[in-house]
């Protein structure tokens, strides 16, 4: 137990101490001592600040991510289950996926203005592709025997979707959702860097513009914590949702 704890915390502690010591006497304007950054962190990220800046960011992130997941899965199932549609849509989808999402920000601003809607659309526009393409792949790869079994036992329409297509595509869908999550965080920040009046990305840029360097660093650290926290949440959710899949894979590997 102690050994495990040592392994988990050992390196982080060493790195932290090294940073702290190495930066203690830093004269560099842009790399202030860690002591200052920590002090700035405590001063900057007060509960009010979190509510005023982090909460709106998270709300937009959540809205955009969920919307992208819904659209991606719905369109992905439709396209994946229809070979002709898939053949027609594939090159177009490949193209849209390859467009770096941030370059769409100026375009989306033209259509959607600068409000929360724009930021949500930006997030959706980037997140939807990995979900969609993975869903298409997952649905397409539905096992033939399983599909026959479902058909022989009269599973059609909604039941087929719910009991066959979605669960059998779920490992791929979740892989897509995982990719989408990191893209969503990136786009949340980027959409706030372009035109915003609150949000985590906005605040960090504001600190940078006003040369409040320790505060800026504290924002970067907060963003890192946020990314880490969300990915841990995702991992928990995935472990629950895909328990059967990991078990199946382990069973296959053993045999």
């Amino acid at each position: 137990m102690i050994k495990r704890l040592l392994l988990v915390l050992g390196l982080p502690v060493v790195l932290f101490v090294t940073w702290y010591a190495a930066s203690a006497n830093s004269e560099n304007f842009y790399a202030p001592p860690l002591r200052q950054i920590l002090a700035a962190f405590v001063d900057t990220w007060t509960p009010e600040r979190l509510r005023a800046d982090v909460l709106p960011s998270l709300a937009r992130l959540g809205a955009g991510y969920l919307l992208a997941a819904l659209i991606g899965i719905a369109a992905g199932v439709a396209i994946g289950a229809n070979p002709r549609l898939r053949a027609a849509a594939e090159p177009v989808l490949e193209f849209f996926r390859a467009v770096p999402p941030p370059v769409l920000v100026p375009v989306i601003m033209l259509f959607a203005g600068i409000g929360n809607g724009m930021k949500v659309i930006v997030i959706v526009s980037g997140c939807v592709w990995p979900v969609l393409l993975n869903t298409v792949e997952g649905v397409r790869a539905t096992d033939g025997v399983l599909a026959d079994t479902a058909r022989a036992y009269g599973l059609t329409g909604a039941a087929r979707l719910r009991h066959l297509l979605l669960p059998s595509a779920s490992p791929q869908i979740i892989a897509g959702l995982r990719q989408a999550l990191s893209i969503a965080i990136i786009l949340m920040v980027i959409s706030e860097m372009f035109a915003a009046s609150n949000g985590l990305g906005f605040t960090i840029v504001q600190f940078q513009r006003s040369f409040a360097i320790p505060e800026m660093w504290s924002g970067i650290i907060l963003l890192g914590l946020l990314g880490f926290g969300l990915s841990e949440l995702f991992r928990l959710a995935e472990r629950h949702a895909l328990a059967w899949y990991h078990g199946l894979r382990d069973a296959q590997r053993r045999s």
Partner: protein
Amino acid sequence: MLEVKGLRKVYRSGSREVEALRDLTFTVAAGELVCLVGPSGCGKTTLLRCIAGLLGPTSGEVTVGDRSGLAIVFQEYGRSLFPWMTVRDNVDLPLRQKKVPKARRRELVAEALTAVGLDGTESAYPWQLSGGMQQRVAIARAVAYEPSILLMDEPFAAVDAQTRADLEDLVRSLWQRLGMTILFVTHDIDEAVYLGQRVLMLSASPTVVQDELTVDLPAERDQLHTRADPRFVTLRTRVYSQIQAAKTGTASGAAGELSSADR
């Protein structure tokens, strides 16, 4: 009862045509257990899929009465069970689809699992079970469905010999107890003779019914004595020679299918 009349199936891909089934006609009486044997690649699976309604015939017709009274067990047990559902849910799902009331469903599931000897595995996932047990789940699912006709597509081709013998006996005992019609497809001649009341022998592709044989072995069969019975040996020899004849007799047709399959 099951009636197949003039069944023909041609696969088309592009300009190529492959005739899988040429002209099949046979009937299976209600409550009968009939085995279908034929050389590999003779279109047994195609036939079964046509009967199950998974595939539309090119011409001819299949009469099965009520299709919802039809259940099917595939060879690939690992791929025919829903890996994201427990054993119980796998057996239960088709019943839910049939809108069977909940209490009755619970009864049916429990009975079926008991019948195949899987008590106590309800909450396990299929992949936590051995291959033979997985196939038992698939059989339980079919049995719980209370079908009038049960189609089995080489169900024991992928399990080990000992398990296979057990499962064969299981099928016969379930059949005797529940009195449903069973069409059992296999490439194993011994299995066909051991299980069936009647054996239908198919030719090589394009397929027709080559011959038909009534198995006049006693209804009570067991692995040890039945297989040692001289009558069993005679019957299996006859089936064997017919299959051999089917293979050599239509060798050119088989080659044709091969060349079009490797495109």
